[in-house]
């Protein structure tokens, strides 16, 4: 009996140790506006850019990772999306600016699920919208020559017969 109890204790101790070492392993992300966010290591798993760095350094200590292209506001939005398991409803609540920035960050951090989610959300957003809207949304300057514009309209003309421009 006594032996068994000791065994049991040993197992528990080992478990506690493991948990402790897990708890220690946290990643500190420093955003562009100087805010440090401490996140679980599991969170970072999806950020392939950071994960690759961690695999390369292979350290047990906490890691500080600077994100000069990511604001704390956007990073916290991303955390929300991740903890909400990328719920479409959460995405719908984002502003246009947030959506665009998150898409850029998802690309920068190589977060595939988030990238697909935001890309399809952006596609939804520009559906049935005017050329001007898309131009503004993508932050693009019209670089067509008048001739090119005429040519283009001619090519697409048939498709827009009877369709209302918004």
């Amino acid at each position, binding site marked *: 009996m006594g032996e068994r109890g000791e065994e049991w204790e040993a197992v528990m101790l080992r478990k506690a140790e493991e948990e402790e070492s897990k708890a220690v392993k946290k990643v500190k992300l420093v955003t562009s506006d100087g805010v440090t966010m401490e996140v679980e290591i599991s969170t970072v798993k999806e950020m392939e850019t950071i994960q690759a760095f961690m695999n390369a350094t292979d350290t047990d200590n906490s890691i500080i990772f600077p994100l000069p292209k990511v604001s704390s506001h956007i990073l916290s939005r991303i955390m929300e999306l991740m903890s909400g398991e990328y719920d479409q409803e959460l995405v719908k609540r984002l502003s246009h600016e947030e959506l665009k920035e998150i898409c850029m960050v998802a690309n920068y951090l190589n977060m595939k699920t988030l990238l697909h989610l935001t890309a399809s959300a952006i596609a939804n957003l520009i559906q049935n919208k005017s050329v001007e809207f898309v131009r503004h949304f993508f932050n693009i300057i019209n670089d067509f020559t008048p001739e090119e514009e005429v040519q283009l309209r001619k*090519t697409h003309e048939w498709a827009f017969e009877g369709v209302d421009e918004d």
Partner: protein
Amino acid sequence: MSSEKNCVSKLEKQKDCKVYSLLDLPEWTLDCILECLSPLDLFRVAQVCTTLRDKTRSDALWEKLIKQKWGRLLGDAAYHEWQWHTTKFANTQSIFSLQQNQTGSCGSFSGVWPFLNFHSYLENFTDLITLFKNCSKMALYICLESGRFWFPVQLYKTANLLCYDTIVSYDSKRDTFKARSQTGEWRLTEENIQWDRLRSPAVETSPREIHMSNCMLKPGDQIEIQMKKRIESPFYKLVVEFKQYSPSSRNKRSVLNRNRHEEQVSFLRWFGGIRKLDKEEEIEKWNNLFASR
């Protein structure tokens, strides 16, 4: 995460100085967005700037869209015909020859067809010639959707249980097809044809050649008789020989005679071989036609 509160004010400050464009995203991210768009949206996005115009014209994007909407109907034959029309005009840059052929790539329907092996027609395409070379998939989509490309299909005729070769053009407003058939010298033979009455040509043999069946038939197999337009050597009878029976057996041969009625209905069609049906859906389709007759 606890720092969320105090970062909001900082964010406000930095928002103003951010200038970026989604065009800075790597290509495949942008492709991700474009892939979710409908053809109409792609046309609109194409008008935003030259970069997006070029990106929305990629063959990969349009190939997917063609498969989605047209995959069921476009057979290899249709692709070959398309290739023929477009490479011909991508290579002949001569304005003179284009002006002469403005009604269509093979002259007008009422006129003589210079290429009798042809089984398609392309009309009203002069404004698309520049697209043929560099974005041929988008051009194909446009020509299909706008009804400019008459492509080869087979049309089910419920009344006499036929499925015959024809060329069709799409009417996007009604979501139906118009058909022209060689039998009537390419006159318009039918309009308002629904999607489910068409199929892509079942055999690769052209409508003018005999289809040589290379499959073994056994009792219980479902077959379909190919009708061909081959005036030079008409077959009046279709003889099916069963290899598994001995030559003396009365089951060895089965002879199908063309009767008078049939000849009246389809006076320019001749037996052109048989084809075994091995797809369940094809058999079901014929059974439905039987039932609805």
